[in-house]
């Protein structure tokens, strides 16, 4: 059964795992996360919110390791590639267009927002 305390001499604790490749696959991983949620109908704000949310371990890891700029740039690129409107709240033309996230300021997202549905995120005791 799980114990409460770590015992670093216990061979069952923290198993090392040799990887077949040390290739950094953060970029295709990020691309996949964005595309999947975009296909589910999330807009760019909601996708960015997922990356900011520490409960989405994989997505949050990308943001922590590579920074928010990297994530935003990928969102811009992938939404453009798929011809998706960048901000469904502000765009009603219904046509594919590519220019709405041309600059950093174009993601008008509150810096504390990290839940795609707008709910409060419980604070992690880190």
């Amino acid at each position: 059964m799980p114990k409460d305390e770590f015992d670093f001499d216990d061979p069952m604790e923290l198993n090392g795992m040799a990887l077949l490749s040390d290739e950094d696959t953060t970029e295709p991983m990020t691309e996949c996360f964005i595309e999947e949620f975009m296909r589910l109908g999330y807009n760019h704000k909601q996708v960015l919110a997922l990356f900011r949310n520490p409960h989405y371990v994989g997505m949050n890891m990308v943001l922590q390791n590579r920074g928010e700029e990297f994530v935003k740039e990928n969102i811009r690129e992938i939404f453009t590639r798929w011809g998706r409107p960048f901000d469904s709240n502000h765009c009603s033309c219904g046509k594919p267009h590519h220019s709405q996230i041309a600059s950093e300021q174009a993601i008008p997202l509150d810096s504390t927002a990290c839940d795609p549905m707008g709910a409060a995120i419980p604070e992690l005791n880190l």
Partner: protein
Amino acid sequence: MSNVFNWQLGREMDYPFDAAFPDQQFAFIFNINRCIGCQSCTMACKSTWTFSKGQESMWWNNVETKPYGGYPHHWDVKTLDLLEQHNPGGQTWSTKPQDLKGPYGKFNGKTIFEAAKTNVSPEGAQKAMGYLPTDEEWAAPNRFEDNPTGSQKGAKGEYFKGGEALPQHKTWFFYLARICNHCTYPACLAACPRNAIYKRPEDGIVLIDQERCRGYRKCMEACPYKKSFYRATTRTSEKCIGCYPRVEGRDQQGGGVPMQTRCMAACIGQIRLQGLVQLNKDGTWKEDRYNPLYYLIHVAKVALPLYPQFGTEPNGFYIPPRWVPRPYLRQMFGPGVDAAVEKYSVPERELLAVLQLFGKDARICFRYEIKEGPKVFETEIRGKKFELYDDTVIGYAKDGTKIVETKVEETLHLRDAKHANSI
């Protein structure tokens, strides 16, 4: 030993019994690209089937973080290692696809049934080569996989402190959801000295007869996926029952038509699609062009079996994660990986529509049709032409009832805050 045909290996292989195929086969596809490891499936299964005494460490459905985790610990690495020991360097494929009778080419290596013949112990040769995991290996699924708990005692209503001091994954990983694969050639069934395990002729679901089972655990040793579990309170083994009352259409929610299992229906990430497929007399899949599983596995070929080289012909299929290094994926899903990832990354018109069927309705979809919609976008993705059509896909239940109608460009509906938790 009999000679049976395994279409996933593209060849005949040894199996302790003659081939016998059900009228229909329970099968499923998990899209790993979408799994966020929320464990809703795990809890749906646990709260339905394994909530009783003696079943505490039994998870018929589990989600593990690859390559770091496994339930039981290192289940796949250990079996792969045993096979490598018995056939050093020989676990290879000839990758010339041959349609329904060998869509991934031909496997040249040894299956667990073939390797078992030379794995002789004082008890004699095994029926299927395997090992019995220790109690510790079963005890703590997900432990240290990606949610380190820190070094303090837990307190109600508080997260653990100190988690940041533990190592984090700095590179790739993915979530692998697993249930029993209800294999066409089950190793658990082959190994049971009591003949207590059987495959239902009506849907191919593999069950353990609790009256006959005496808990020898040979099934646990033989199953390469380690999806048979020992229950000390009854001294018998238990396993996933494929939620057969639902598959039979006996869950009143379904109105009499076959329903998907609890784990499939509970998936919030819409990564799962379960169905029943028709089989030919030789065990290959009967052409059923508009069955979504047939399409995804045999036409689009984006969904692949888990460790086909084990030789049990599992009926669980996976859309492989796009970002994971290919050598790892080829070992896990066979040589079809490269084509599958390519197809999924730049999806064709029909594929985009069929992917919309995942997780839309709890009833089993037996047939789909697509109503063509307008082209909304056209571009090039990594040098390949990509066109997006807003088609409508319609899914039908066994009795022809329409169970889902949705568009490729699906609208996201947000529930307002006042009714966030209402059903």
